[in-house]
């Protein structure tokens, strides 16, 4: 179980980071509600 768990969690983390980073520049929230974005993802000049 542990053998598969770690790669699976790495995959989930990578996808989650991809979604998080791309949602800083484009709005994915077509479904009209959005969770609170962490400060580190807010882009500033």
């Amino acid at each position: 179980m542990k053998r598969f768990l770690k790669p699976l969690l790495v995959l989930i983390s990578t996808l989650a980071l991809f979604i998080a980073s791309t949602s800083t520049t484009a709005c994915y929230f077509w479904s009209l509600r959005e969770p609170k974005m962490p400060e580190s993802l807010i882009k500033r000049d």
Partner: protein
Amino acid sequence: MEFPERLSEKLTAVISENLEDLSERKLAEINYGIAVFITNSYKMLLIFFLAILLNIFKDFLIAFISFGALRTFASGVHAKGEWTCLPASALFFFGIVYSGMVIDLNIYVVSIIFALCFSAVLRYAPADTEERPIASRKLRKKLKVLSCFAVIALYLASAYNLGTSISSIIAFAVLVETILILPITYKLAGSMYGVGISINNKREV
């Protein structure tokens, strides 16, 4: 806290236990990414399923893509709670589809709708929220330009399909999304318009 956030926190805790080398910042971003995925996916699946049941999937897809093409860049007001979001999303999408199927718009009406939407997008897009502020001026400018291009592309698509329900559905989708970026809509929904702009102004002061 809504259930997508609760679920994402639990999953992030499992990730944190098993992958030790992740910083607090990275974990917060993973948590957010998972919450975004859960928040969007289950509602979209439900609405897609409902569209199939109502036998309007093709028209729904046109409404969904047109609405989303503009919303991706222009953003707009969002529901505060999970259980106001689902009925609101369903109401908007099916409202757009049925209005487009019933009301046949001619080129003059389509042109007026798109001209009004273009002016509103030019003035108010991108319309961010307290949850996801767009503070960068460069990014705001880029999103405004892309929103304008999206309106033009959708106008061309609507004009090309004139005389069919597709044309009206695209026009109504753009109209609804444009209404969602107006400051008056934010006021009515109890949200704050222009959070990103105020963050930028505070930094400059």
